[in-house]
């Protein structure tokens, strides 16, 4: 079969897989994004003893293959089946999608925590002092000064992390989640036509490309007040691509 026939025949499956990949990636990244700010604050401010468990967690997540983490959760939960059944959690762990999502969220939380920690450490001291000087409470200073800045500093690195997570999500196919990779392997085992892998590669590249464009758009929005000051003449010229 030629590559176009493969696509014509199997595009519904590939589309289905694409949606699954996007769902898995975005949900995983989102859950991690909800948890990581608190963790990052602990990593910056808490005493070394209080940080120890968090550091261990981050080191473990960064020092082991995601595939091993996924297997530890998906297959490993089977060892505690009676216990999990008692707690009513077994239905959660029986579903490969849930396990993959949990593994990716846990993994991404570790990376996002470290990235955000770097961002918080990058906020200029003087700005925090200024916030204190005008009488902002600690919480208000975090909300209005520290985090907006930290996120702007961390934004490109966070984007890279989401892309890495998207690539890692292909591992979910190993535990029978039908994402792009899962659908591709399914079609290949049916047709033995190699071109389906090339279509999968194209889909992944397209997802990455679209994501990079959107992320840059958001970055420009986050730092628009800086751009206006440093590139004063740019307001006269038509606004074109400012970043390579």
């Amino acid at each position, binding site marked *: 079969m030629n590559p176009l026939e493969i696509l014509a025949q199997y595009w519904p499956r590939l589309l289905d897989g694409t949606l699954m990949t996007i769902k898995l990636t975005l949900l995983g990244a989102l859950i991690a994004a909800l948890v990581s700010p608190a963790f990052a604050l602990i990593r910056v401010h808490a005493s070394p003893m209080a940080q120890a468990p968090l550091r261990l967690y981050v*080191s*473990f997540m*960064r*020092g*082991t*293959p*995601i*595939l*091993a*983490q996924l*297997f*530890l959760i998906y*297959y*490993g*939960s*089977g*060892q*505690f089946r009676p216990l999990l059944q008692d707690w009513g959690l077994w239905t959660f762990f029986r579903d490969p999608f849930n396990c993959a999502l949990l593994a990716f969220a846990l993994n991404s939380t570790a990376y996002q925590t470290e990235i955000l920690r770097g961002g918080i450490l990058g906020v200029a001291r003087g700005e925090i002092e200024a916030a204190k000087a005008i009488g902002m409470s600690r919480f208000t200073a975090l909300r209005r000064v520290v985090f907006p800045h930290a996120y702007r500093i961390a934004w490109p690195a966070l984007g890279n992390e989401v*892309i890495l997570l*998207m*690539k*890692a*999500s*292909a*591992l979910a*196919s*190993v535990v029978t989640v039908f994402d792009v*990779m899962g659908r*591709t*392997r399914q079609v*290949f085992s049916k047709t033995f036509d*190699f071109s389906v*892998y*090339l279509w*999968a*590669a194209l889909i*992944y*590249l397209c997802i*990455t*490309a679209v994501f990079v464009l959107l992320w840059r758009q958001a970055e420009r929005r986050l730092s628009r007040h800086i751009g206006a000051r440093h590139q004063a003449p740019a307001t006269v010229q038509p606004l074109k691509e400012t970043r390579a």
Partner: protein
Amino acid sequence: MFELFSYGDAGWGDEILRGLAITVQLAIVTLPVGLFLGFLAAAASMSRLLPLRLLGFGYTTVMRGLPEILTLFVVYNGAGLLINAVLQWWAPEAAPTDFSPFAAGVVALGMVFGAFAAEVLRGAFQSLDSGQAEAGRAIGMTERQIFLRIRLPQVWRFALPGLGNLWINMLKDTALVSVIALDDLMRMTKVAVGVTKQPFTFYLLACLIYWAMCVLSELVLGQMERRANRGIRRA
């Protein structure tokens, strides 16, 4: 519980160590392949010829954007098909052969490593002090001499942290070859799980072994970085 991990017929210690040996072998064989590809791609993307630059850019962009497991499957299945097609044409009566999973792992992981290493090396070459190359030119060194004696020895220092990260990533990515049936640490763990029915224990053990390897690598890399920077004044 510890007899599970003992050496010999009763425990799984020897099987898992054999898997670990394959994992380490794979990583060590992949490293020079990946570095070689990385140098080639970095040279291509810094070339004066536009087609070469485009080739280098295309390779690094595509390879870095694809999931490693997809690259592995493309190489494993694709190279197998290619070899058999060539074999059919060369000697039609020969039996079809399989591309060995180890070779597929080396090629796929090496290609991924090479793409990321190219970017690290390109950055390292570009962060070299251009005044030193000019000084070399001023005292009449040829471009070749400048490259070999001034630029290349210093690239190491700038590239080492990035390459160290890539080594650790690659070490972790070797776990993927278990999916194409290479008997590495991950797959031997799976075999042990299949018999003992203790998935959590054994996958946790595998995780701890990978973790130990990564922490050890970090220590060694830290030492290497200190050594590489021994002649540099701290700002």
